[in-house]
């Protein structure tokens, strides 16, 4: 036992803060007491107490349910388990409901704790861990998978993604190289062009992506949407807004409810000073926190009342914090910066987020927070990083 040093060790301090925050969040939760809360007993039997799904189940959802039931009877059936897990991850991509990730982990339960499970499980486990922002563990899984089979396209692709998200462009670039041989032209081009677009070759990256999209008309829709998304983001960073908007719209025509696309397009519209259009774009979706936050932001910029939305979002972030989740750091920092207008906590969150991921959006957020709080060191850190990687982004420029 050491005498408790109050605050200056690097790691325990972070943990200490998280602990204190969690404690405060839990203790401060409104009405958690037994005596005083707003629970109730409805008067009528016909009253709807919960909307479990926005609509009836899709064919894919029904299929997953059947397969999960099958798997429950035969839990060590590896092909079935990996199939179920993959489908659940796809479902997570569509719905953004983290429950899907939990179910996917359960499907892989017999192998989950193995240090070296079968390669399919390794790749899926990496994907699930990545989605929970456990990037180091995800990378370790992918490296293990690539030792088992150095020609596994999915492992390389996910590895490239992970390194890109963490701003490790050297390793990301190296992970793209095998893809040229192992996957189709559009996938390989998009992966490579994405990295190039973040490291000083944005204009060339756009040309490459456009040419590849023209040529590979028969590529699967998901890959086309992905390529279009990268194209839209790269052109947006270059300040070519009209082009960017065109690509977002094309992509949305192929995947109308894709949350990532909706978020990206809404961000573009907000940047262009068109909050009403952003609100109209997002209006239908109330489920996904990131989109709700953009909706509230759009309402606020357009001069509409958004207090109820903000309060509701605050409750959701508090719930996530009480659980100890740190997946929403980027959203939370942005929420604190733009909606709650608490620059100090926004800066703290943005810095914490920057330790985990380093995409242009993260850099921009940290720079904005640093500027609002007049934190020159953080701003210089971001701009230094931008210069080192030769990242081209109209929102990440030094002030004249």
């Amino acid at each position: 036992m050491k005498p408790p040093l109050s605050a200056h060790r690097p790691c325990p301090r972070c943990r200490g803060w998280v602990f204190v925050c969690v404690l405060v969040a839990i203790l401060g939760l409104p009405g958690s007491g037994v005596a005083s809360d707003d629970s109730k007993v409805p008067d009528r039997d016909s009253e709807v107490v919960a909307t479990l799904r926005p609509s009836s189940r899709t064919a894919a959802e029904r299929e997953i349910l059947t397969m999960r039931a099958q798997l429950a009877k035969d839990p060590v059936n590896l092909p079935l388990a990996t199939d179920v897990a993959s489908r659940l991850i796809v479902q997570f991509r569509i719905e953004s409901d983290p429950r899907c990730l939990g179910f996917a982990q359960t499907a892989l339960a017999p192998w989950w704790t193995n240090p070296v499970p079968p390669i399919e499980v390794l790749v899926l486990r990496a994907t699930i861990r990545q989605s929970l922002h456990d990037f180091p563990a995800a990378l370790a899984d992918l490296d293990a998978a690539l030792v088992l089979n150095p020609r596994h396209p999915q492992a390389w692709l996910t590895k490239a993604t992970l390194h890109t998200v963490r701003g490790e462009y050297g390793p990301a670039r190296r992970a793209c190289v095998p893809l040229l041989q192992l996957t189709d032209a559009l996938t390989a081009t998009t992966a490579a062009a994405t990295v190039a677009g973040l490291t000083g070759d944005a204009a060339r990256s756009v040309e490459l992506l456009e040419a590849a999209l023209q040529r590979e008309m028969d590529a699967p829709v998901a890959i086309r949407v992905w390529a279009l998304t990268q194209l839209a983001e790269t052109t947006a960073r270059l300040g070519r807004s009209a082009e960017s908007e065109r690509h977002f719209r094309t992509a949305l025509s192929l995947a109308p409810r894709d949350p990532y696309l909706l978020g990206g397009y809404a961000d573009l519209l907000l940047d262009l000073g068109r909050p009403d259009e952003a609100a109209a774009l997002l209006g239908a979706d109330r489920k996904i926190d990131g989109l709700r936050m953009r909706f509230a932001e759009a309402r606020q910029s357009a001069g509409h009342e958004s207090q109820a939305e903000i309060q509701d979002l605050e409750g959701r972030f508090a719930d996530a914090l009480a659980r100890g989740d740190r997946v929403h750091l980027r959203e939370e920092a942005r929420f604190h910066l733009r909606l709650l207008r608490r620059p100090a906590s926004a800066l703290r969150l943005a810095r914490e987020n920057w330790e985990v991921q380093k995409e242009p959006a993260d850099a921009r957020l940290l720079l904005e927070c640093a500027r609002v709080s007049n934190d020159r060191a953080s701003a210089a850190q971001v701009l230094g990083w931008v210069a080192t990687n030769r990242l081209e982004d109209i929102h990440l420029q030094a002030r004249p």
Partner: protein
Amino acid sequence: MKPLANAVPQRGIPPGTAGVLARLFLPAPRSGPTTRDRARFLALGWIALPCLLWFGTLNLQAHTASTAWLTLSVSNQTVSGQWEIPLRDLDEVLGLDANDDGQLTWGELRARHTDLGGYSLDHLTLDADGRTLSLHVTEHRIRQRSDGSCAVVRFKADAPEPVQDLRIHYRLFFDRDPLHRGLVRFVNRSTASGSESASASVLSPDHPTVAFHVGKDTAENPFALFVREGMHHIWTGYDHLLFLLVLLLPSVLLRTGDGWRPEPSFRRALTRVLQIVTAFTVAHSLTLGLAAFDFVRLPSRLVESTIAASIVFAAVTNLWRFRAGIRESALDPRPLQPLFLNERPWLVPFVFGLVHGFGFAGVLAELGLSRSALGWPLLGFNLGVELGQLACVAGFLPFAFLLRRSRFYRFGALPVGSTLILLLAAGWFIERAFDLSFLPL
């Protein structure tokens, strides 16, 4: 979602693309993919691919993952609880939505209340002082949370005797969703003072168990809580106690011109001890107050390092006097050692007590108090520190006084003890000043 027939990727890269990419990247490997790789890629890749693609960038999680909120309170022999469980998860398990239209009505839910209560309580075990309690549902309600509707299950359990320790073992949904978390809040109500304190815990598949201590009168008021925190801190924060110990070691002896002599009068020894303890107390109370109300703020690294340094200093003073004590003869008139420490034993504890006060303030700050409501907790915390200190002094003084004539005390406890403490404190100092970690203690 089967792999599409027309989605079979073309082998290789069109010449134009490859050329450009080659300029952007390293040369591509020579051999082409094998049929087996391709087959595996199709089997796994094309299903997973769209979602795996640029996933990391996707921060857009819908609401939080599955979370249930469990509040427990104890009053004498009765444990009562309220458990709020998302209806979405319960529906997945129990199929509550009878007509499967996605809209759950109160009627549909009411018809399944027995199953719902049974299922949830089957996944919770409460042990009161080692005995597993039998839980029974008292009421079903519903509650709207920011994340969706929850079923509210209220339950009670009766223990044979007043509950002292409550142990909770939580298993709900872990078998189907390892991301589920049970947020347990334990409310301790004091019937005597009418106050309430709460502690909380997050339960997960890795940590499904938590224990709460109820204590005698089901609760403690906040003041008592802070008194306990203060005592706890002085006993577990060895540095403050060691400092005091080093100062007290020579208090039953007298530094005379020819070395350490046993102090003949217990009253004088006691007075000296009281002077030391009081000086330390006054000094650290002063700075604790100043720091707690934010009048003065010092970097914790500086404070913690200086605290370690203060122990080193006090230990050196002991050794210095000791060495002087055995080496000098009565014929040597030079007072090589600070004799004034005999007359003014309060000086060192007072000066360094000021620094120790800042250390206490750091602990108090970590307990998270608002400045407006700081008065009583501060007083309680300080009182706790003093009580803890007094208990140690009361344990130390009689023994030291009895042993003061022995060679063990004069040539063992005092010099060897001081040396050991000196080494330990020097280690702490290096750790704290240079932000290292190498000591096991």
